């Protein structure tokens, strides 16, 4: 015997040509809704995990979001720099436990270069207060003997195939112009970090002194003509950093954060700004949130359009099916069975579309994930749908059923009116 769902399935399969187009557009809507939600969540997770255990980020008085994006996530443009002695003054504050200065600007084959102190490897935390772990080797020594030592993030080492002892040349700025390389001062890999799932993985770490050294014979972004200081001789110069991009600050007690922040904001030596990472991130999400709402609305519209297509397709085909409906009436199906039949057909098509969309979303994340990881340092997770995503899927299905009721009701009325003698 053919059950009603079986009948609906056979009926839908019979018209699979046009219905598959409808299913495809539903799949597209599902793909958009699911992928967008996944990306949104993963971006937030990644950003939230990028820095932990840091009470304040100190930088030039620009904007909190800009400072966070550049200093912590290595995204966006360079902010102004701050003087190293300002950083030292902050370090002297009685409530401050440690500072880690950061200097950005150079790159290596598309990956950002970070100049910092050895305190970075001790103090920096990510995720849930997890410290940095070296998979191989050791941090750079921070003194003049190991001047040209570099520590690579996991992604850099893996993508460029570097190991301990590999040699690399850094480039000034984003490094796309020829002649912008610090070719005379190559670095050696002395350590490779374990993967963290944060922008640390994409970063090449060197000491602040080394950063000074490679810029000794440069001025305003270009090498000075006629002046060339070989790598070994650079040690003889004063390599103490004068300027840095930002500093991570840890306090002895977290409740003192407002006081230190006010101290930094009112510092008379230089226009400085201290940012609470959590607060700055929330500001970022507020700004981003507007765009997110627009994207969600657009995805919802796509879903609506595809369901309208479903309704239109089924409605258009109803006239030809009046004889089929009469056959069903003749064997004892009531008008409500006819309604159910059409509602089930619509549900099956929507279900097919949704499942296709789920698969496509997984495929998209799986394929695009590594690309996004290496370009932005954001890890996209391939996971089962979370609560919100299930809700979205259920919403699409429910909307599909509701939409199919439209031709269902029409078929109901037709079969009532036609009885056993359809007029077509």
């Amino acid at each position: 015997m053919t059950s009603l769902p079986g009948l609906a399935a056979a009926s839908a399969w019979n018209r699979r040509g046009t219905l598959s187009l409808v299913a495809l557009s539903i799949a597209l809507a599902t793909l958009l809704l699911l992928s967008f939600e996944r990306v949104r969540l993963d971006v937030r997770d990644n950003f939230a995990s990028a820095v932990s255990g840091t009470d304040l980020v100190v930088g030039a008085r620009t904007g909190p979001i800009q400072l966070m994006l550049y200093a912590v996530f290595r995204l966006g443009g360079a902010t102004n720099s701050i003087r190293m002695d300002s950083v030292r003054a902050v370090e002297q504050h009685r409530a401050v436990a440690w500072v880690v200065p950061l200097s950005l600007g150079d790159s290596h084959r598309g990956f950002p270069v970070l100049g910092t102190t050895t305190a970075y490897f001790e103090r920096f935390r990510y995720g849930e207060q997890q410290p940095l772990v070296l998979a191989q080797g050791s941090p750079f020594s921070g003194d003049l003997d190991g001047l040209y030592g570099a520590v690579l993030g996991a992604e850099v080492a893996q993508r460029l195939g570097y190991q301990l002892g590999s040699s690399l040349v850094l480039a000034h700025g984003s490094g796309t112009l020829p002649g912008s390389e610090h070719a005379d001062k190559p670095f050696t890999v002395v350590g490779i970090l374990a993967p963290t799932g944060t922008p640390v993985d994409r970063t090449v770490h060197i000491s602040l002194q080394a950063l000074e050294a490679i810029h000794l014979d440069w001025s305003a972004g270009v090498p000075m003509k006629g002046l060339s200081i070989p790598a070994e001789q650079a040690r003889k110069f004063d390599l103490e950093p004068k300027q840095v991009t930002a500093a991570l600050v840890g306090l002895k007690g977290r409740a003192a954060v407002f006081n230190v922040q006010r101290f930094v904001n009112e510092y008379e030596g230089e226009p400085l700004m201290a940012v609470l990472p959590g607060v700055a991130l929330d500001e970022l999400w507020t700004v981003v949130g507007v765009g997110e709402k627009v994207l969600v609305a657009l995805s919802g519209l796509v879903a609506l359009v595809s369901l309208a297509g479903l309704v239109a397709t089924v409605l258009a085909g109803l006239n030809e099916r009046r004889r089929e409906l009469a056959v069903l009436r003749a064997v004892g199906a009531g008008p409500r069975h006819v309604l159910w039949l059409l509602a089930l057909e619509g549900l099956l098509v929507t279900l097919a579309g949704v499942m296709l969309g789920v698969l496509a979303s997984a495929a998209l994340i799986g394929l695009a994930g590594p690309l996004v990881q290496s370009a932005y340092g954001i890890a996209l997770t391939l996971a089962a749908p979370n609560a919100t995503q299930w809700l979205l899927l259920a919403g699409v299905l429910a909307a599909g059923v509701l939409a199919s009721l439209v031709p269902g009701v029409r078929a109901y009325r037709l079969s009532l009116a036609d009885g056993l003698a359809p007029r077509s």
Partner: protein
Amino acid sequence: MITLRDVRYAWPRAARDVLAIDALDIGAGETVFLHGPSGCGKSTLLSLLAGVLLPREGSVTLAGRCWSELPAAARDRHRADHVGYLFQQFNLLPWLPVIDNVLLGCRFSPARSARAAQRSGSPVAQARTLLQRVGLPQDAWARAARELSVGQQQRVAAARALIGAPEVVIADEPTSALDAALREGFMDVLLGECRAGGSTLVFVSHDERLAARFDRALSLPELNRAAREATA
């Protein structure tokens, strides 16, 4: 088995009745031939007999229940349980396999599937038996209905109308689309099966030559007072 009393039917928004029948009785197991020219209301009468349409006055009783007393869902069930219906053509769902089309006759009636199972062990077995008896080759059983010829489709339709031994089989010009050769064969099958199962058969056609094979022949224009009054 079927009783009509003082039945009056008019199309919605029509001024005059199209059917007016004072009395009609059809007994169980009778084969009745109903004829009349095109447009005299034969299909309308069949719809009334099958409970698809309700008279505005009077009663139509089939298998002990009056259609007007039953609510819509109950009417559909009653029809599924007691009536097998045959159209002139397009009897089958074209995309459904032949055997499933036959089984449609039982799909909406647990009573009929029970009876079919009683006869042959299971509804599917009964369907196969019927398909054999109507002369449809076995290799056609799994094919989609649209792949069959018109004659074959009508035979399948007969099997569907007969599965589960409904008390009444109503046929609305089932042979009009068949040529002479097929017509005789079809009539043999239909009448044979109805008589064997004890089903009442109400057969409508404009071709009076078929009348001889039936127990009773009725002329709708004579039966229908509304028609007589209209021409009078």
